[in-house]
């Protein structure tokens, strides 16, 4: 079943639970396991929290877009904001061999999601996070089809 869901969420931490609930329901509809669903919820929540803290510098009066595009093989989340562009070093995430207090959010996103890609689109920040669905087809090369038909290495 293909479907599209889009939320526009204020950059206020009080609204993160609404986004989590929506992602939880999308995950359930897509047949993700409880563990996988919890992981996706966490990844999207971390991404939104990063937008609030870093892109919008804790301003609570801005907007964040959470777009979910679902097909039989994957859920594609796009998180869009109009704040400051991220520091490339932060996107790379911190090594976890020390007990640092920052960078764990990005690490979690990379560990949980199958694809993670940042780009600027029409002057806005766009973070694309992809979760493959159970039973998604993977060809012999281990590549998975993207929305545009281009092959991308699965993780």
């Amino acid at each position: 079943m293909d479907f599209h869901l889009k939320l526009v969420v204020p950059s206020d931490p009080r609204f993160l639970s609404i986004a989590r609930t929506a992602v939880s329901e999308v995950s359930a509809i897509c047949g993700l396991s409880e563990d996988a669903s919890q992981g996706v919820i966490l990844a999207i929540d971390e991404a939104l929290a990063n937008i609030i803290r870093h892109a919008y510098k804790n301003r609570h009066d801005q907007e964040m877009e959470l777009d979910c595009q679902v097909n039989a093989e994957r859920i594609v989340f796009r998180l869009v904001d109009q704040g400051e562009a991220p520091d490339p070093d932060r996107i790379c995430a911190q090594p976890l061999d020390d007990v640092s207090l920052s960078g764990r959010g990005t690490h979690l996103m990379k560990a949980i999601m199958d694809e993670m890609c940042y780009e600027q689109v029409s002057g806005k920040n766009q973070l694309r996070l992809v979760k493959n669905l159970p039973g998604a087809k993977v060809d012999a090369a281990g590549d998975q089809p993207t929305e545009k038909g281009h092959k991308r290495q699965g993780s």
Partner: protein
Amino acid sequence: MQRTMGSSTRRAGDITIVDLVGQIDLGSSPALRKTLLDSLKTTKHMAINLAGVSYIDSSGIASLVEVLRAAQDAKKKLVLFGVGGAVLQVLQLTRLTGVFEILQTEEQVIQA
């Protein structure tokens, strides 16, 4: 499922037990941090009960790490118990299960 974070504090002998419930995220982790640091000031041994926590993100984990550091600096004991589900998953993904002393039950905390 409780959505907002709640906390309560009680004593079991010399141990201060902080019972947490609900969801811990960017919005509630500052309050969590303050609650735990305030409780730590008045005790040498603190146990945090996470059995009622249905969700925690990296900001919540960061608050726990900060409190752990404060406990270590003050040579105080901090343990976690009731860790399961979503909380355990996040601790495992962030490779912090070996950093905290984690026990299963309150009985183990009291007997330790």
